[in-house]
């Protein structure tokens, strides 16, 4: 039932209304609203009960194993939530004088510095509000760099075909043409094709490493050499940073820019679709272009650095300071892990992925790249199963839901047919991975014995499979009474 269907005209939550006399006679008639908006009229209990019950209709990390590849669904520490919600932090107005928020700013500044150390970059800006905005900032800085050198012909960004959709989309939003390069059978960027693709029109390349195929890019040095030699810059999509924390640093490897998904690697919550935080780091040569505001420290005082002091900046990407509250959570996480804990993340997320990969191989689900190590995630293809039984990757995914596991990412990366991209993360135990592998084994077995049963799943959730075609053909996007 929708909250609107619980509504009754005149129902009120009087305790939530201010006790201040209305006084709007100065607002001219013609500017006023006539018809009140269609908001539900419910009691506080109605609302609490409705949304509490709705929440129970979700899978989440707190309730299920959630091995969604590329998404790093690890435990979100409750302490980070509690501390970011301290009343003084919640009440901080973004335009309040810096002197009144040194505690808040200290956290952000420390985070900025820690991220520089972790990525090996020369400087970091915290403002991008998610990975895609970080990417945008990165390519905008590449654009600014070439522009500042008068190199206006560089209008192409190279993107491997395995890249996440935001990579090409960000390049386009930033006014670039996108050129795709293919992937080899081993899961690496095709170096020959890349060499053929670069030229005076090349502004840069966006590389995800470990790639979305779950493997460490074998040609990572050569790729950069090729792009740099052609006069382009290199961008590192750091969404998969979880796999390399404390092992390799994109800055050390020569990358010019990187974004991080703090809502993945730094365990801030996904919240059903955000908010995220997509801090960007850059090499010296791009530092002048970083988006503002940056955090500076002077004479022991933290302060914002804006457009005035950074005239070459690509500018501002949000009205205030990005998703500051998310950054506080990332700070808590980084401080709790510290130098010792950071490398353990890569160790154990990699261990978990390789272990699960081995377990699945044993039940007849070999990895798509059998010769490769998994990074923190890996791809399997259900093409053989589909050919044999008609049961698709989507069917298996839905059947997993019935078994109490969230499904892995399906059909991404698109170049692997019928694929599942599986990322267990370091916070899950061997016992959970075993249970997941056992469930998959049961499903494979069921697919052979009774494929219709699998194809009909899920059976145990609040709804069965939804009519997506109808949803798109006859869009019903808002309740209107």
């Amino acid at each position, binding site marked *: 039932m929708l909250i609107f269907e619980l509504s009754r005209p005149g129902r009120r939550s009087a305790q939530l209304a201010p006790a201040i006399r209305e006084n709007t006679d100065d607002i001219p008639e013609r500017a006023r609203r006539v018809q009140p908006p269609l*908001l539900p*009229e419910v009691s506080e209990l109605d609302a609490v009960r409705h949304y509490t019950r709705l929440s129970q209709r979700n899978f989440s990390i707190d309730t299920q194993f959630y091995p969604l590849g590329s998404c790093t669904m690890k435990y979100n520490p409750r302490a980070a939530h509690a501390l970011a919600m301290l009343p003084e932090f919640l009440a901080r107005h973004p335009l309040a004088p810096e002197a009144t928020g040194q505690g808040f700013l200290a956290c952000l500044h420390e985070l900025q510095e820690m991220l520089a150390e972790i990525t090996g970059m020369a400087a970091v800006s915290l403002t991008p509000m998610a990975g895609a905005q970080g990417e945008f900032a990165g390519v905008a800085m590449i654009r600014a760099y070439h522009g500042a050198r008068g190199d206006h012909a560089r209008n192409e960004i190279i993107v491997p075909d395995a890249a996440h959709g935001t990579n090409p*989309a960000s390049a386009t939003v930033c006014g670039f043409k996108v050129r795709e390069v293919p992937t080899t059978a081993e899961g690496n960027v095709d170096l020959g094709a890349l060499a053929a693709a670069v030229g005076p029109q090349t502004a840069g390349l966006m590389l995800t490493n470990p790639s979305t195929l779950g493997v460490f890019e074998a040609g990572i040095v050569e790729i950069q050499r090729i792009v740099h030699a052609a006069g382009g810059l290199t961008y590192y999509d750091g969404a998969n940073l979880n796999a390399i924390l404390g092992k390799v640093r994109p800055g050390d490897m020569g990358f010019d820019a990187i974004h991080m998904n703090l809502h993945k690697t730094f365990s801030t919550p*996904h919240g059903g679709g955000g908010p995220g935080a997509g801090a960007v780091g850059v090499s010296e040569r791009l530092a002048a272009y970083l988006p503002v505001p940056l955090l500076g420290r002077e004479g022991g005082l933290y302060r914002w650095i804006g457009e005035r002091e950074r005239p070459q900046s690509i500018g501002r990407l949000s009205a205030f300071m990005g998703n500051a509250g998310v950054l506080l959570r990332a700070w808590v996480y980084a401080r709790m892990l510290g130098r010792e804990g950071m490398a353990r993340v890569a160790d154990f997320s990699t*261990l*978990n992925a390789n272990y699960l990969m081995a377990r699945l191989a044993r039940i007849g689900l070999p990895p798509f790249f059998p010769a490769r190590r998994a990074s923190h995630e890996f791809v399997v293809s259900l093409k053989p199963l589909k050919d044999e039984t008609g049961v698709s990757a989507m069917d298996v995914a839905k059947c997993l839901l019935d078994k109490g596991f969230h499904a892995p990412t399906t059909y991404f990366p698109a170049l692997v047919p019928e694929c599942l991209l599986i990322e267990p993360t370091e916070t899950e135990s061997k016992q959970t991975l075993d249970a997941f592998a056992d469930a998959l084994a049961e499903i494979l077995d069921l697919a052979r014995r009774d494929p219709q049963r699998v194809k009909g799943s899920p059976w145990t959730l609040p709804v069965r499979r939804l009519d997506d075609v109808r949803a798109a053909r006859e869009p019903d996007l808002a309740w209107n009474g």
Partner: protein
Amino acid sequence: MSFIPHTAADVGAMLCEIGAESIEALFDEIPAGLRCAGLERLPAAMNEAEVTRLMQSRARADGLALNFIGAGAYEHHIPAAVWQIAGRGEFYTSYTPYQAEASQGTLQLLYEFQSMMASLTGMDASNASVYDGASAAAEAILMAVRAKRGARRVLIPAALHPLYRRTVRSIVAAQGIELVELPWEAASGTTNWKAIAAGAQEAAAVVVAQPNFFGVIEDADAATDRAHEIGALAIAACNPLALALLAPPGRWGSGAGADICCGDAQPFGIPLSGGGPYLGYLTCKQPLLRQLPGRIVGRTVDLDGKTGYTLTLQAREQHIRRAKATSNICTNQGLMTAAATIHLALVGAEGLHRIAAASHARTRELCARLAAIPGVRPLFPGPFFHERAIGLPRPAAGVLERMVRNGILGGHDLSQDYPELGHALLVCATETKTGADLDRYAEALAEALSC
């Protein structure tokens, strides 16, 4: 302290299953020359108790001042229920609802959010959020430019939030879009829409801020009509709380109303939190639906004909359309959407009206008190909503500094962005302020001016 559950026995058994000697061996595909030494400059780990104590002491040092700053981020009472529910693990720790059957909670909530925002703004459709109000304005402009193929000029009022204008510029600049600023009239603080020149005929859109950055209520009808007259789309940029009192953009003007509405729904249950996360919203009329960026939830049925909710119209999005997507947005502000939806459900239409009206009343009362202070005067006479530009007899910066010493955040200094205003302050009193607070403000301001 990496929240890792592995016991030594687990690690042994796992390596054995993998057939690897050590965890280190799993990294053997990384070229040796690339390996880094460690992260020596990171601080040492802290346990939960230590980080709690540090964070609490920082919070306490920051303290809580009496806040009269608005300027795009507003302090309102947040019902306790909002975050106690939004913070539940099932909302807090779920991903974007890709697996619809396992995400009906988030999906239905988003559908409810879309419904609320569409109705509030008078539009046909809403997405499930973009980042913040400023990036929402940029997305709105990009929508208009795409819709009006060819036209790459957009008219923006100088009385739109300066930080919104700068953000828009950063985001749309690379696409060769020309932003033309519409001046405001010194006497009224409003934009003269009728004066939009014939030369602007090729504009894709006209942005209308309601209320504008000075808190002043614009003639949104004239703006919308003029936009349509010159063949442009009308984009409304609104504090959605104001729309509890003011005409919804979808009804502006003498025709079909504004075409797109954008803004920040932060006033709906979302804490100030130093600048974010907030809640960019974006709604539009039916013909623009396929230009709308971001997640959209649709109501549909399942195999048994039962009602259910799912992400829809995904062919617009980056994960399907890649370089041809309507936007690069992927992760948005999901949890903030949950908070805003719960907030709107709790307060309802009447509650929202009362919050808006009370905030307005408080700012009026504050202005009445300020009238008694020599040299202090509202800069614009016209109607406003809950925020006002105030002229001072001396530089705002120093005055604000003195007020801070009395524990009061006195407002936002306008002279940086609008030097033409002289010594000026943007001040906002919401429903959170009592009569005594207003007195305190007036006294502190008088004192700051007198010393």
